[in-house]
């Protein structure tokens, strides 16, 4: 005899699946915490590294914290910025705040 499954069982099953997925993600996130690789931390401290090697295509994207204020245009006054990373960097702070007249 085939057992009839109540429709609510399907609905509750879906909710439980979603809840468990969410809980698993949150638990893993809480357990890990912000973790620092000791080898990288040693390199930063010993060599005085100031930036991450995330975007190595240009000077001002490799070391955004050390770059000139007008990094993308330093090669030539009329030079156009051509790296997408540069285009994705934040504009200077004074352009992002509304100044009082």
């Amino acid at each position: 005899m085939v057992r009839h499954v109540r429709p609510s069982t399907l609905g509750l099953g879906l909710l439980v699946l979603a809840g468990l997925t969410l809980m698993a993600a949150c638990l893993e996130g809480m357990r890990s915490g912000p973790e620092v690789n000791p080898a990288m931390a040693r390199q930063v401290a010993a060599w005085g590294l100031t930036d991450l090697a995330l975007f190595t295509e240009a000077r001002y994207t490799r070391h955004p914290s050390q770059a000139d204020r007008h990094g993308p245009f330093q090669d030539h006054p009329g030079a156009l910025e051509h790296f997408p990373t540069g285009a994705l960097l934040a504009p200077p702070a004074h352009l992002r705040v509304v100044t009082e007249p």
Partner: protein
Amino acid sequence: MIPLARQRYLLDFTVASLLRRPGRNLSLLLVYTLVVFLLASAMLYSQALKQKAAALLQGAPEIVLQRLEAGRHALMPADYLERLGRLRGVTQVQGRLWGYYFDPAIGANYTVMVQESADQAAGDPATDAQATGDPGPGQAVIGVGIARVRGLAPGDVLSLRGYDGRPHAFDILRVLPKDTELTSADLMLIHRQDFRTLLGVPEGHFTDLVLSVRNPAEVTAVARKIAERLPDSRPILREDILRTYESVFDWREGLLLALLAGGVLAFLILAWDKATGLSAEERREIGILKAIGWETGTVLRMKLWEGGLISFSAFGIGYGLAHVHVFHAGAPLFAGVMRGWSVLQPSFTLTPQVDPLQLATLFLLSVVPYTLATLVPVWRAATVDPDSVMR
């Protein structure tokens, strides 16, 4: 009837009603999940990168001092160390040698640095490079990114063209550990003599200076004093570095979310249309329910179950998938946008994490509006006369 059993029957009816239009509801659930997945992926990725950068760069120099000439970064003469003199609170001042080398063979920029222990820098003859593990003249320690792209291993020779056109050969002493790619993928550590002959930095000059300050509360005051003594210098504080990364990733996340906004808006229109515009069939269904004795409150609870079931399932599954996508699969969908065009790309894993505020924001933005939007039209339909609704 026991309240729990009553809710169960309501859910029975809701799911059965959803299953009567499986294609429509399943596609809504899929698109909803996809939207949550994309938004959560963008938020998790940038948050994880921000935290990683903040945690790693806690050890960055307290003050980096650059010299400016014609508004651009220029080499720092060694006599600036003397001109700086003794500053109260500063425990150490050190000149650094670092720069960039563009390797035309692979079209990539290397970050070339001089690495030497304090004894070797002071010229202690008892401490040679080999004893400290630092590269000696003619030797180089390279990051995994360079080793991978150039196909180099310890013992190989890397030949580079100096600033004056002369070739320089470096024996690869070792390759930096693979799990440090995020800080060292493009690094090339060499001896100071080699640095000067390869890149043409004259004796008596440094790239910049780094200062250690005893009391963190005095860093700003020290920086102000430096700016007074050396007006052509630009001090960069550790907090400036941390702020730069905070804003870089905030900006990137914002940009990614702006790109996703089109898709999110399209979904909102779809969801709003689905949630607010009741079909004639649904209206008739509500009319029949009312006619057979359902109360308005019961109809609303039934629809609340429907909205909650779809939106909470989409939220939970979408967030879970985003977590796997970012922390276990390396975020393949976003890596291209987030990492740019560089030849030497570091491979790294992000540490799983959860930000309660971020989670709550995503929940409030995705689950609550949809669930509420399903209620309004139903309430309107449920409060009119069943006879007129059925007609």
